[in-house]
């Protein structure tokens, strides 16, 4: 059941280091398109995965990434210095995917800031784990994470999957740092509360 994760690993592009991204951003600002191309390449996997959280159509996400970078290149002369390139790009992608989705569905009334659905299915990575109890623990945790409300899942996803710190999560979600912190701890609390009688739930879910 966890086989698909096997091949993916070596296929995954290396995430750009923070310092390198900041330097490349400066070079892009100075008019170097290859620098922007490198940023795109280095963060593509993250951005693509992130885009799919708002719309499941892979081709549409690819197009949104294309358009976002073309916009960046057109705005090259007026672009500002950004504190965190990855978080900045993630905000842009999220905005574009949500607005494209709204256009497609014609749902102008939907409140995009709060009303979107965060599409994620956490799936435990159980490779090389032999101990049955440990397998069970991880599956249980995964199961509970999947049952959290949308915003909390988004925080968990950014924290554990994209490995962002609270500062970056706040920037990506366009929330205050304290709100992110609260969301995160609410999630942890609810996960710990579920821990005790999680056994029964998990057994049901397992069958």
């Amino acid at each position, binding site marked *: 059941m966890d086989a698909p994760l096997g091949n993916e690993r070596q296929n995954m592009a290396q995430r750009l280091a923070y310092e390198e991204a900041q330097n490349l951003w400066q070079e892009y600002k100075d008019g170097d*398109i*290859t620098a922007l191309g490198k940023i795109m390449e280095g963060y593509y996997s993250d951005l*693509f995965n992130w885009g799919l959280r708002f719309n499941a159509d892979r081709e549409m996400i690819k197009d949104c990434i*294309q358009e976002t970078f*073309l916009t960046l290149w057109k705005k090259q002369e007026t672009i500002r210095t950004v504190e965190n390139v990855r978080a900045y790009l993630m905000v842009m992608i999220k905005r574009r995917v949500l607005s494209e989705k709204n256009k497609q569905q014609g749902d102008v009334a939907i409140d995009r800031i709060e009303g979107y659905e965060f599409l994620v299915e956490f*799936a435990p990575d159980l490779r090389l784990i032999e101990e049955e109890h440990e397998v069970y*623990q991880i599956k249980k945790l995964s199961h509970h*994470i999947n049952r959290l409300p949308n915003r909390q899942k988004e925080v968990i996803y950014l*924290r554990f999957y994209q490995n962002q710190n609270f500062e970056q999560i706040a920037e990506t979600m366009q929330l205050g740092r304290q709100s992110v912190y609260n969301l995160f701890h609410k999630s942890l609390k609810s996960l710990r509360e579920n821990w005790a009688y999680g056994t029964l739930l998990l057994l049901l879910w397992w069958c």
Partner: protein
Amino acid sequence: MKKYEKYGVEDFIQDEEFRSWVLGSSQYELLWFNFIRNYPEKREELEEAERWIRASRVSEAPISKQEIRSEVQRFLNRAQDGVSHFNEVGRNESVLIKTNEKPSHIWFHAAAASLIILTGLIIGNHYYRMPSPAKVNNLVETFNHTGKPLPIFLADSSVVVLSANSALRYPSRFTDSARIVYLKGEASFSVAHQGQPFLVFSGEMITRVLGTKFVVNAFENHKKYTVQVLSGKVSVYQGKEGGRNPDLASKGLILTANQAAIYERQDQQLFKTIIADPQALDERLKLKDRTYDEVPLPKLFEDLEALYGITILFDTAAFRKCRITATLSTEPLFEQLKAVCKTVSATYEIVDGQIVINGKGC
């Protein structure tokens, strides 16, 4: 060594080395194995951190490297079509490429060449064998019709700027043993530092590096092939694709930044020379104006040597008495030399990758 013994669950989760170990990289196997053995009391926190990382994976098959590269390429092509200031991009590369197109007085005449370039780092590796190109599969070919330099991103993060009317064939993924690409025409390479060597096959010429910046010129219908080194250190050897190991001890040349090699086929001789427009080793120094007021000429030559990393040979005794007053800024090196030599009735020539000043002095 990081202070892992003071780490809590949160710290382990955020640590990239820990994450990649949990997610199956064998690179840090020993590190964490030893850590658990030395700090058994940390086991519980380590396990909880591992649980969190494993539980929060996301199942969608991520996008492949090939797919990413083709998307980046699509973006670069589209940006080029629509935006007029693309020509400004890659200024350094295009300067070097242009100088290469019109034969310059400093180039030796050379027939079709056959060279192998090895970086200085691997000199003495007598056991090296050229991998057979036939084994490489899944090659992608890009032909540059655009009339402008075209950047291509390779799977290992190396960047190739392909000149007009040139073609590059490259695997969508590199094998573990070597990174091999095939060039017809001209391209400048910025090779990412990595363990396995990077090879450019072009006609009868092979260029081999471990991570440096250089330009290969190998148009099929041109009479000579050249390799120019922009940064790093490279060695050039005589040899043929598929042939025996190059004789590293006898026929090699070492090239440093701003130097170039030409192989003359008829005489089977390798020549060292200087690239047409040498660049300052440190970009920041290049932009500074250098003002000389009644300064002995040898001092100026020494400054140029340091700035461009090129040896300048001259008769110190003869030129010591020559005093020079000048302001040098961003003019090309050979323009600067021409101007200086003129004031003291001297001439310069390029011999074996060095500059030799001839003149009677003052």
